[in-house]
């Protein structure tokens, strides 16, 4: 929770000293009921009171997360008694308080019990403890030896400058690398417009989004920002919303929101794009069309339909509509669509955007988006070769994990073994660190200084939010010390990175001109606000001209795979694999399959049927790269001739949580790079599939895929929006009724959830874990239906006339006014509060579990065991929320701790709680603002207005439980079958499968 104004860490020392003390006491205070160390009967005061901290209250520090998925996020680290207990989006950021699931889980990355606790040295086959002095000395000597390579994540800002200077100073090569990089996109834009840039995709302004595979709502470019833009573009209350067409072999998280799906064969997105571009050009017949006539000529609908497996008719309709659109936009293939000819695909999409007039209107090169440059995959492959040929003396790996993220078939890990000195600066004992000779563990982002340009002209500043948990050091400080030993100290004025950073910012400050504040004030403001907006240089023509190279580009025909074509895709929870060490992410139900703690192979029913394969059966997938045996997931959102596997699992190191889960999809890739951009081909490899006949284990958190027309998940056609309401949701009766809340209470807390805006990204779920001390129970217990998540996102299929549409349904306690769970409790542990909440009093609960039986929404969770929070994970626990122990029922409380705090604040100021003053954790972190919380008794509150909207409905309304949560129906352009809400003919057959999970 954010206590009013944000503090900055004046001079780091005060907090350090006090943390020395409070670190311990804090642990106890938080670990209340859950076992781990408690200060028990001791009261530990400060030694010296820090100026900016009141014990027992939260202080937020603005800082920067660059490692949480594809986009950098400025966050507020909420610190209680010296421990970061919660991350929230920086309200002043463009994405507001929104965060991604991965970003929330950065806390568990910080408190990972298996982080490297201190410097390590390889002795024989084991890594043994050593001192920083020895480690630095050894590293320095190694660097002095020359032929050094420094591997880091890409960066813009001081870090980039520092690494370059450092590399120059010690005569090393700096290779910034990002596994799921954007090299193909950059290259394509280079070819098309001679621009080395990443454009901004303003889908919020578009009326027809045509996506060629980019999972822009999950894992591509900027999911949080794109989510917000998408929701804006899909705001359906006025009966209009952007049409969304998805082209590609597999429906990704983003694909699930699409109105229509053109299942093009993997690699043939290029052709689809070109064919449509050709049609659009034919219709537009303007200058731009003429420019590309030649290059598009060969790609007629018929020809393309032939090789893509999409009916020409559909293509024609699509082209028709796309050409007619006011502000069309075509999104590139992203990672999952990144084949052996990635640049071609990107370029094809660019041509389509070009002819459709999107360039310069919905796609802008003068937009906010900036992404650091990095070396392509090909360069890394080459590095591997040079290493194995012994050209490299020393490799310093800081913050990347090539030993895992490079396809095994390239033998990068083996090559590492061939390097005399491998020095890892990773905070985690990941695969690369495991292969290192020395580990000099660096701080976690939340413990470190740093900065970075997160959007054009905005320089974000990162400050340590807490005292390091382990004996680690600032990554750049280590490099400085190493440089010093290597005799390159004089290259730097600053002795530590904080000094260096301030130096860089001094320069920035210098540019501001006369009327600027003093550096101190400016710097402190930057620290407290999380960054500074700088003047943006003029970027020239927003709609640059197409180059001749692009106009005469020769597109290669994609090779048709013999058997199956394989698609490997990153997931929201693991991304490139960095999420695998976090329990929250392992237990995070995959946004598409709802599988947990594992990796799987997605197979179309028509393919699985003949093989007799059902979800959970083990199948073997073999490619040129290798072969894996894994449980199948029968998924209708994929082409019958395509197999899809998620990236990010199958770690051999990286901590207890990650090791030995699922398989590493990269083992299936032979590492063929795209010729032009040097990017790795994540899709398009040809694979063979064999059923092993054995039963594997795949835990799916969704019992049944259809809501059987039970008024649970609702989908309507865009034309029905104005008259969508089945029956008036009469707020007056809803909240005035005495039994919903005390007539004299000014509050009836309620929520509205817009299913149309909800993209199923799951940020809310993880936010809830971190706010409410939810335990993680592990794969087995999940399989037994004993998960503890207070909030789950159900993924229900709704039939449309020529397909199906997924509705993501965030399910949490509905805080019913007429709650079935309450009267059955023999001890009043479940009861109704005067403000309309369903109280659940943990210490009163005796565990009859009657309430859970009687809850129609099945949102109550029972503590079947007492779950452990191994140190230091317990440091993350929120002291404002009781940690529950065995035998107790628990559930969502609408973050009552926040409600109570807000009420206290309001009382202090002699006023009522203002609308929007209370944000539940889920609402706070929702990128699309699908969740709105507030006071239903205030007719002017946002939630009241939303709930009155025409799309509002109450889940399982016929039970008359009078939920405080109003769902807003999801809206699609697709035609819906008469009367049905999507049970279709599936009812019987699917109802059968349900129990077998």
């Amino acid at each position, binding site marked *: 929770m954010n206590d009013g104004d944000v503090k900055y860490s004046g001079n780091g020392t005060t907090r350090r000293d006090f943390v020395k003390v409070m670190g311990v006491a804090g642990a106890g205070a938080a670990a209340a009921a859950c076992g781990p160390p408690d200060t028990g009967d001791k009261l530990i005061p400060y030694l010296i009171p820090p100026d900016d901290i009141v014990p027992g209250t939260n202080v937020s520090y603005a800082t920067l997360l660059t490692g949480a998925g594809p986009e950098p996020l400025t966050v507020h680290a909420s610190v209680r008694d010296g421990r970061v207990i919660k991350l929230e989006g920086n309200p002043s950021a463009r994405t507001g308080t929104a965060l991604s699931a991965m970003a929330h889980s950065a806390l568990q990355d910080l408190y990972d019990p298996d982080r490297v606790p201190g410097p390590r040295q390889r002795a024989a086959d084991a890594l043994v403890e050593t001192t920083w002095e020895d480690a630095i000395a050894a590293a320095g000597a190694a660097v002095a030896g020359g032929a050094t390579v420094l591997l880091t994540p890409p960066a813009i800002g001081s870090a980039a400058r520092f690494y370059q200077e450092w590399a120059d100073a010690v005569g090393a090569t700096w290779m910034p690398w990002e596994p799921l990089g954007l090299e193909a996109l950059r290259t394509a834009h280079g070819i098309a417009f001679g621009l080395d840039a990443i454009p901004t995709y303003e889908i919020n302004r578009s009326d027809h989004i045509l996506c060629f595979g980019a999972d822009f709502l999950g894992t591509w470019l900027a999911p949080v920002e794109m989510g917000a833009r998408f929701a804006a573009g899909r705001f359906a209350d006025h009966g209009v919303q952007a049409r969304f067409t998805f082209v590609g072999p597999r429906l990704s998280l983003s694909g699930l929101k699409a109105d229509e799906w053109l299942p093009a064969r993997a690699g043939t997105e290029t052709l689809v794009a070109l064919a449509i571009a050709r049609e659009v050009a034919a219709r537009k017949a303007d200058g731009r069309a003429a420019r590309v006539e030649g290059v598009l000529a060969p790609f007629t609908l018929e020809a393309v339909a032939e090789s893509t497996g999409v009916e020409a008719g559909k293509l024609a309709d699509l082209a028709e509509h796309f050409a007619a659109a006011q502000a069309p936009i075509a999104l590139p293939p992203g990672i999952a669509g990144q084949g052996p000819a990635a640049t071609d695909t990107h370029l094809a999409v660019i041509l389509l955007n070009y002819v459709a007039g999107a360039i310069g209107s919905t796609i802008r090169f003068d937009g906010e988006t900036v992404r650091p440059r990095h070396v392509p995959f090909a360069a890394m492959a080459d590095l591997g070769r040079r290493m194995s040929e012994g050209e490299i003396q020393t490799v310093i790996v800081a913050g990347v994990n090539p030993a895992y993220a490079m396809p095994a078939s390239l033998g990068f890990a083996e090559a590492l073994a061939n390097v005399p000195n491998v020095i890892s600066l990773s905070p985690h004992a990941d695969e690369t660190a495991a292969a290192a000779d020395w580990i000099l563990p660096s701080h976690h982002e939340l413990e470190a200084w740093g900065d970075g340009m997160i959007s054009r002209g905005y320089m974000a500043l990162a400050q340590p939010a807490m005292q390091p948990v382990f004996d680690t050091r600032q990554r750049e400080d280590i490099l400085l010390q190493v440089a010093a030993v290597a005799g390159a100290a004089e290259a730097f004025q600053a002795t530590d990175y904080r000094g260096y950073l301030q130096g860089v910012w001094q320069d920035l400050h210098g540019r501001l001109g006369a009327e600027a504040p003093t550096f101190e004030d400016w710097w402190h403001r930057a620290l407290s606000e999380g960054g500074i907006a700088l003047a943006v240089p003029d970027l020239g023509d927003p709609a640059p001209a197409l180059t001749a190279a692009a106009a005469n580009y020769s597109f290669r025909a994609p090779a048709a795979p013999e058997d199956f074509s394989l698609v490997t895709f990153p997931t929201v929870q693991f991304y490139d694999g960095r999420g695998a060490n976090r329990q929250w992410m392992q237990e995070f139900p995959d946004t598409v399959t709802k599988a947990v703690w594992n990796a799987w192979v997605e197979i179309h029913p028509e393919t699985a049927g003949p093989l007799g394969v059902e979800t959970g059966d083990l199948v073997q997938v073999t490619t040129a790269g290798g072969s894996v045996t894994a449980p199948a997931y029968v998924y209708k959102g994929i082409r019958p001739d395509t197999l899809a596997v998620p990236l990010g699992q199958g770690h051999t190191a990286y901590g207890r949580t990650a090791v030995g889960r699922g398989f590493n999809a990269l083992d299936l890739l032979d590492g063929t790079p795209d010729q032009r951009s040097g990017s790795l081909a994540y899709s398009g490899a040809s694979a063979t599939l064999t059923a092993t006949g054995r039963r594997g284990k795949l835990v799916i958190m*969704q*019992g*049944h*895929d*259809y*809501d*059987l*027309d*039970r008024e*649970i998940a609702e989908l309507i056609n865009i034309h029905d929006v104005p008259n969508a309401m089945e029956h008036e949701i009469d707020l007056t009766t809803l909240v005035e009724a005495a039994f919903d809340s005390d007539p004299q209470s000014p509050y009836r807390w309620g929520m509205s959830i817009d299913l149309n805006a909800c993209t199923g990204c799951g940020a809310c779920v993880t936010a809830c874990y971190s706010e409410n001390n939810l335990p993680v129970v592990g794969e087995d217990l999940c399989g*037994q*239906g*004993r*998960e503890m998540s207070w909030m*789950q996102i*159900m*993924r*229900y299929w709704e039939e449309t006339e020529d397909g199906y549409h997924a509705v993501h*349904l965030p*399910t949490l306690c509905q805080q019913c006014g007429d709650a*079935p769970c309450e*009267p*059955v*409790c*023999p*001890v*009043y542990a479940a*009861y109704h509060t005067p403000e309309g909440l369903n109280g659940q009093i943990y210490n*009163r*609960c*005796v*565990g*009859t*579990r*009657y309430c*859970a*039986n*009687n809850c*129609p*929404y*099945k949102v*109550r*969770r*029972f*503590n*079947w*065991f*007492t779950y452990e929070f191994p140190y230091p994970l317990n440091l993350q626990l929120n002291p404002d929320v009781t940690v529950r122990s*065995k*035998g*107790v*029922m628990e559930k969502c409380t609408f973050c009552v701790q926040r409600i109570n705090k807000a009420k206290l604040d309001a009382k202090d100021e002699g006023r009522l709680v203002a609308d929007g003053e209370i944000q539940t954790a889920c609402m706070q972190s929702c990128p699309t603002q699908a969740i709105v919380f507030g006071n239903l008794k205030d007719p002017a509150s946002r939630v009241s207005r939303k709930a009155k909207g025409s799309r509002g409905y109450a889940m*399982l309304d016929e*039970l008359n439980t009078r939920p405080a949560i109003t769902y807003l129906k999801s809206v699609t352009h697709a035609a819906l079958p008469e009367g049905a809400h999507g049970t279709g003919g599936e009812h019987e057959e699917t*109802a*059968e499968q*349900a*129990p*077998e*999970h």
Partner: protein
Amino acid sequence: MATAEIEVPSEGLPSLADANRDISRPISTPYKRYWLLLGICGALIAAAGIAWTIQIRDGMGRAGINNPVNWGVYIVTFVFWVGIAHSGTLISAVLYLVRSGWRTTINRTAEAMTIFAVMTAGLFPLIHLGRVWYFYYLVPYPSTRLLWPNFRSPLVWDMFAIGTYFTISLVFWYLGLIPDLAVLRDKFTGIKKKLYGAFSLGWTGSVRDWAHYRRLYLYLAGIATPLVLSVHSVVSWDFAMGVVPGWHSTIFAPYFVAGAIFSGIAMVITITIPLRWAFGLDKYITTYHFDNMAKLLLFTSLIVGYAYGMEYFLAWFSADPIEMESFRWRASGFYRGPFWIMVFCNVVVPMSLWFKRTRNSLKALFVISVFVNIGMWYERFVIIVTSLAHEFDPSAWQVYTPSLTELTIMVGSFAWFFFWFLLFAKTLPVISIAEVKEHLAHEHEHGGH
């Protein structure tokens, strides 16, 4: 009492003294097998005790139950035993009120069964409690928390109903025992005499005492009858008060009561047949009695069968797709096995009782009664588990399979029940001597001249 309809063969009619001797014989005679059985029961109880201890240490997770299916074998077995508990007081009270003399020879056994069954059933609400060490939160007593139990909760009703039922049954049973205890007091010497003497409260059989005695006995029979009906109704409301499709039904109270009587009678038969054989009480418990019980069994079986049918009819008649889906799945889904076992044991098998030959063959009767016991356990399983496993929110559907802990404790509960029953059979007259004498006396009077 009108006893004319009793057709005990006048030939070889035991004398009153015979009655004393025969009925109290087992108490003095030693049986090797008896101690063996007692030992086995003890061992099983110990095993269950260990299982429970482990569950308390680790948490309810030791049982197989999960989120949608929060109640499993524990509650199933609880309802099962409450059901068993019913025939006892029913036979005693109701048959007493309607003056069916044939109850005489079995009421003692049946009442004992009631008491032990309630003692067994009463354990399960505790065993299934997540935090059993806080069970006293359910007890209404003035505490520093100033909090009281929620009397709107069916679970609290349950507590009161079961408690009352146990107490009243105990009084009823003990009252019936007093004269017989006096008999034993006069029969034995030494410590036994002292013990039986103490418990017989110095009963002399004075006619004045008999007057008060008969009056109270009548009252107890009177109040016990509505009590019997109320108790299992309350138990059924544990479910019927819920919104769960498959539970939320108005026929539950009569349905459960009938089921309870059904299972109770079955258990009486299951127990009396070996008892009669072991203690050689053929003279007192005759095929006539079994024939009557068999008829009652058949009748209740028909009611139960009707209830099964009616549940489906109502599901269809309600036209509620959720209800319909729930019942469709019950018969064809993951738990179709238990469902059809239930139907076979409770509806099909008892139909053989239409034939007098079956009713009069003790072997057949024994087998059938065992089938019914099994079937009734499965009935509760089907009602509780399948309903919960297939509720409103399809994405929450999840099946449940019992864990070893649960099964151990369930088996233990049977051991616990028979343990007490064995103790009873060895220390107290299993047939009401006084009442038997009453009948014999009248027989002699009539048969005499």
